[in-house]
């Protein structure tokens, strides 16, 4: 692994983001709008339900966590798509970069992109709704880490599809998170799902992450088992995504996708 090359690819995206005010605005705008919207919806729920004793806090916290996951995954895909849209894809793949270096650089850049959007959204919740995500305490870090790994995993899986099938796979890039969201039990307990859906949900790390966030906020207790299962499933899917990326890269070299991508 060469840090110089990893830094070089990071710089390519850093320059792109910092040169363009609309890009920075886009990164900040959607999470902030999302949080504001969910804040007002939660305020309304709080006056019409007895389920949550802290409806605004729970829903807003989950909204922030979900948005972090969404931004990380989309952010990773965007970095890959940027290369295709700018017709720079071939230049990147004929540079002497190992696949591991490309992935590492994109993983770091995706984190920075997500944080650019997330930090203003978190700051906004306090003055507007009197909510602080820091109420989750030190377990906040483990939840964020789990979400980040799963977001990156989804990003790598979609990028594998882009490598294997070319730009026509782009639409899938936008829809993955929407497909998984119902099974993630982001805003509701897993019991809300039909039994067959529960079985699917239990093999995703999301359900453990969001169950734990609600558990901490509602019951003020920590269930380490949830954190543990989230990491186990994350490790499984992350390893799978890396293996699939390498497989797709080799398949693309056989099929000719890498050279056609630039044309």
């Amino acid at each position, binding site marked *: 692994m*060469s840090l*110089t*090359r990893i*830094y*070089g*690819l990071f*710089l*390519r995206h850093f*320059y*792109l983001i910092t*040169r*363009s005010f609309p890009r920075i605005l886009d990164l900040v705008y959607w999470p902030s709008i999302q949080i504001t919207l969910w804040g007002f919806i939660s305020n309304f729920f709080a006056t019409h339900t007895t389920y949550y004793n802290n409806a605004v806090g729970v829903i807003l916290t989950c909204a922030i966590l979900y948005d972090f996951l969404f931004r990380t995954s989309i952010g990773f895909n965007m970095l890959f798509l*940027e290369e295709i849209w*700018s*017709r*720079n*894809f*071939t*230049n*990147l*793949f*004929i*540079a*002497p*970069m*190992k696949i591991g270096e490309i992935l590492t650089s994109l993983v770091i850049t995706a984190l920075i992109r997500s944080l650019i959007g997330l930090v203003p959204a978190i700051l906004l919740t306090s003055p507007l709704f009197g909510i602080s995500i820091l109420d989750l305490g030190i377990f906040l870090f483990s939840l964020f880490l789990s979400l980040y790994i799963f977001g990156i995993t989804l990003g790598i899986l979609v990028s594998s599809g882009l490598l294997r099938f070319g730009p026509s796979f782009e639409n899938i890039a936008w829809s993955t998170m929407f497909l998984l969201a119902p099974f993630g039990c982001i805003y509701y307990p897993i019991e809300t799902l039909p039994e067959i859906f529960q079985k699917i949900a239990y093999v995703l790390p999301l359900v453990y992450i969001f169950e734990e966030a609600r558990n901490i906020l509602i019951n003020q207790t920590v269930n380490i088992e949830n954190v543990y299962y989230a990491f186990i499933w994350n490790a499984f899917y992350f390893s799978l995504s890396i293996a699939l990326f390498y497989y797709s890269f*080799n398949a693309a*070299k*056989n*099929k*000719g996708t*890498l*050279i056609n991508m*630039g*044309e």
Partner: protein
Amino acid sequence: MKNLIEVKNIKKNYGKKEAVKGISFKVEEDEILGLLGPNGSGKTTTIGMLLGLLKPTSGQIFINNLKLEENRIKILEMINFISPYIELPKKLTVRQNLYVYSKLYKVQNINERIEYLSEKLRIGELLNSITGELSSGQKNRVSLAKALVNEPKVLLLDEPTASLDPEVGDFVRTFLEDYKKEKKISILLASHNMNEVTRLCKSVLMMKNGEIIDQGKPIDLIEKHGRTNLEEVFLKLSRSKSEFN
């Protein structure tokens, strides 16, 4: 002379379709080899295989005596490519693009290298311009600078002067001739501009339907086929294969 490119009987199949049917050739150092052929003849596929973007179905490729299959990263460090079909990130300035690629190729003394290439390729005044806002001729010279940022031993050029006006086209051709002479590099040039090929190439390969159907020095091919220039030879060979086999 040392062979910097050596291709041994490479084939590339896409399913049942044979895109390249077992071709072999060599390019010595300080040589420009022309790769000619009509669209779909297998030129781009061949270049893709040399760049490691495509895996040959069979056969072997050696760059600077290193087997590509086993030394992909080492080989990519000493090779580069320019094509009108690929571009540099449009929103970055020219300097940022050259800086990024210098990092990817682990170039030492990056600023010195950028200054050197800027002077040689007359892009000094463009360094702080946005790449996407440049004219085709300016973009072409910037892409060439990117392709030379790692001081490649092997340069693969796919239509390097396509869509350039005659003045810029001539500048690029002169630059390539001088650079090749100075650095003793090997260049594989795929082009449809027969005057360019006649001027730059020591020898040419004529491809059709994935095969090499003729090869030799441009002047010898013109004489062999009883034509007055390479374009006429190209047309003759493109339109009929059997009579030359």
